[in-house]
């Protein structure tokens, strides 16, 4: 399997394997625990991967991985399942309230395994 998205040059390059790529449902997320950090991992319809913080900055609950994946003006998004605020999967910024954001993390596929970097 090819690399879907390269590690950010700013990341420390500490990659943590999360799950087989094939285990991710298209347009659905999964939560991963990396150290004490909760990461929400998403696979889009077209096969791109994104990783953002799992904690919903509006409710404080760790639920972002359970949101609905979609697009807004072509930009891939996830909606918080709690109160439906929509976040960009690319930047992590809340498109309904740009003052709020979730962190984003580098994510890639190596030999069919999804890896994230939270260093």
């Amino acid at each position: 399997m090819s690399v879907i998205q390269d590690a950010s040059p700013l990341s420390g390059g500490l990659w943590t394997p999360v799950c087989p790529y094939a285990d991710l449902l298209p347009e659905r997320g999964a939560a991963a625990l990396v150290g004490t950090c909760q990461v929400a991992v998403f696979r889009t319809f077209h096969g791109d991967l994104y990783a953002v913080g799992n904690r919903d900055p509006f409710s404080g609950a760790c639920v972002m991985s359970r949101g609905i994946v979609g697009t807004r003006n072509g930009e891939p998004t996830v909606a918080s399942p709690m109160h439906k605020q929509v976040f960009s999967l690319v930047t992590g910024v809340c498109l309904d309230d740009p003052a709020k954001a979730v962190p984003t993390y580098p994510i890639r596929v190596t030999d069919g395994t999804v890896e994230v970097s939270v260093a």
Partner: protein
Amino acid sequence: MNPNRLVVVGYGPSAHRLVEAVRAGGFEGGITVFGEEPRPAYDRVALTSYLAGKSVEDLTYPAPGGVTLRLGSRVARVDRESRTVITASGDAEPYDTLVLATGSAPFVPPVPGKELPGCFVYRTIEDLDSIREASRSASAGVVIGGGLLGLEAADALRGLGLETHVVEMSPWLMPRQVDEGGGAVLRNHLEALGLIVHVGSGVRAVEAGPDGRAARLVKPDGEVIEAQIVVFSAGIRPRDELARQCGLAVGERGGIAVDSGMRTSDPDIYAIGECALAGGMVYGLVGPAFAQAEVAADRIMGGSAAFEGADLSTKLKLLGVEVAQFGETQFRRTGPGQTPGVLDVTYMDPVAGVYKKLFVSDDAKTLLGGICVGDAAPYGTLRPFVGRALPGSPSDLLFAGAGGVQADLPDDAQVCSCNNVTHGRIRTAIADHGLTGVQGVKDCTRAGTTCGSCVPMIQRILVTSGVEVGKALCEHFAHSRAELFDIVRVRGITTFSQLIAEHGTGRGCDVCKPVAASILASLGNGHILEGEQAALQDTNDHFLANIQNNGTYSVVPRIPGGEITPDKLIVIGEVARDFGLYTKITGGQRIDLLGARVEQLPQIWKKLVDAGFESGHAYGKALRTVKSCVGSTWCRYGVQDSVGLAIELELRYRGLRSPHKLKAAVSGCARECAEARSKDFGIIATERGWNLYVAGNGGFTPRHADLLAADVPTDVLVRTIDRFLMFYIRTADRLQRTAAWLESLDGGLGYVREVIMEDSLGICADLDAQMDRHVQSYFDEWRATLEDPEKLRRFVSFVNAPGTPDPSISFETERDQIKPVLIPLEAVSR
């Protein structure tokens, strides 16, 4: 200079509009109106609703202030010399300006027997009273004329319980509005309602029975129609006798000749409405009559408005069937005299009874006109484009309604023909006033306030102006939920990917995906977590449980009718104790188990399912509960077994996905202990059967349910609820409860009754079949998930640490039960 004495002869809709307009314009002189009928002006377009139970008061226009009304007073003569009108009883009334608004009279063809008792015309309240009176001793009626008015009359006869025939001279019905294909579809609709249609036929005679009253109609081919009531509705003739008497110019075939200012050959006399011949035309529609009234009013006030002809496009609903015609549609397509340069595109669905045709120029670039039967959606969206570049591919335009319109509308295109509002005016109003919805546009511009057919176009303009509106679901679909439902149903679409690829843009969002999921589920497409459907579900549906404020879920097993055995109660108690859950009794007579983590859900379900429980669908936009009182089994007041019925209904409708949640209740007597009238459907027992109430609501906007059916036996009750629910599921907007849905329906409860109890749309068999499919295909979503390892894999806390509980979830104790500890938002690490 304003004249100071205005006299109006005739008091119908156009006279009423004129008087309103001059008063609104600040006319300060005296106004006297003579009305031949014994009552003030009323809405003649809604005449048929009078027989359906509307009162004269309902139809009567509000009385204009500062006007002397002389009702029941026929003007016999106009003396132009002395500028005086003289009534039949000899009263004289002087005028400075006179307006003739004498309307028209029904045309009765010279048929032998047309004067017999039992023969009627269809124009006034008195006509309707006479027809109603005569119907008491009649079994069948026949309407002569299958045009717009004739079918109105047929609707009325049918409503009076008569076997109803329609005789139309042309080879198809409504020949002025629709072509042969549309006429055939319309005929199917009407025949499905029990009407007997005779097209291509004239009338030889009306014959009397032994009592001297009309008894039968004989067609030229000798066929006899037994009918005791005969209604002539074969067109109108302008009432121009006053004009002829006083020597005003009239047309060769009748009608008072007027100029573009609605002025007759005497500059002090105007004529408006159906008595006027404007530009060589007598207009028989209320829209042009109103326009003429406004022009005359403006001229009387010293203005220079002109009537330049009117758009004859029509949209109406006859016997529950939508019929519309716009632009130019009278083309000869074959044989000698074929109109060159015209193509037509037809969409026809004989099963659904839909016929839509567009006429375009032969380069397929210009829209010329269109005809719709069974679904008039293109009328509102396409009429403004007549004579202009086609705004999309013809097939998209015919099928997708507003969604198929790709092009921008020119600013000078008329959007609302009733109130003459252009696209530019609406666009400017949206921008200048920051309007965000249809209501705002209506308030600001009057567009969409009369017939409402341009409302989809207004929505479209709001969308193109960058406003998100209710009807377009979201940025991915320009359709309403009801439109999407029809698309999915008619085209047999089974996946969201297909739906959005063919009818939307992008990859959806948290608005359109759950809607698509619900539609697919309503149409019986298997487990909601199967394949691609899983990705469409809201978190509640996705985890078959209800998310709570700390990210845990609640579990609600179904307890049909609120009846539960002690053993099952104990199982619920054990489950709650073993998993450490908080328990609470709900308002729907069941038990909520709260605080379950995602990975605990399957284990909890396993215990419940093993004990005979199933999902209660508390997480779904679906049937929740059918609450009941204890009923006649125990209660000394009960008259029926409310618990038994509640259980039957809950088991029948369990799992039914709908636009919003559905709640129901059954009360065993009129004391109504189950609070059935606050439910989406509520049943109250009577001595003779059940009363069915629908569209009630508790919650934010309480509403008492309306009585839909009284004293019905159980089988009829169940079928009626089946249809009510399926009709709601088909046509409601996203997240629209039954109460709001019913109130949004044109015709309200009466319309619902026509559709589901009288089958006015001919869809009842389809609704029944759809519900039967639902009942037969029901399965428990919890059990099916437990049996499928693929689905079970999703119920983990972390994909890389499935056994580790979410460390952010913790509880404290309150009143001997758990309570979530919410982490303050500032403490978010990441």
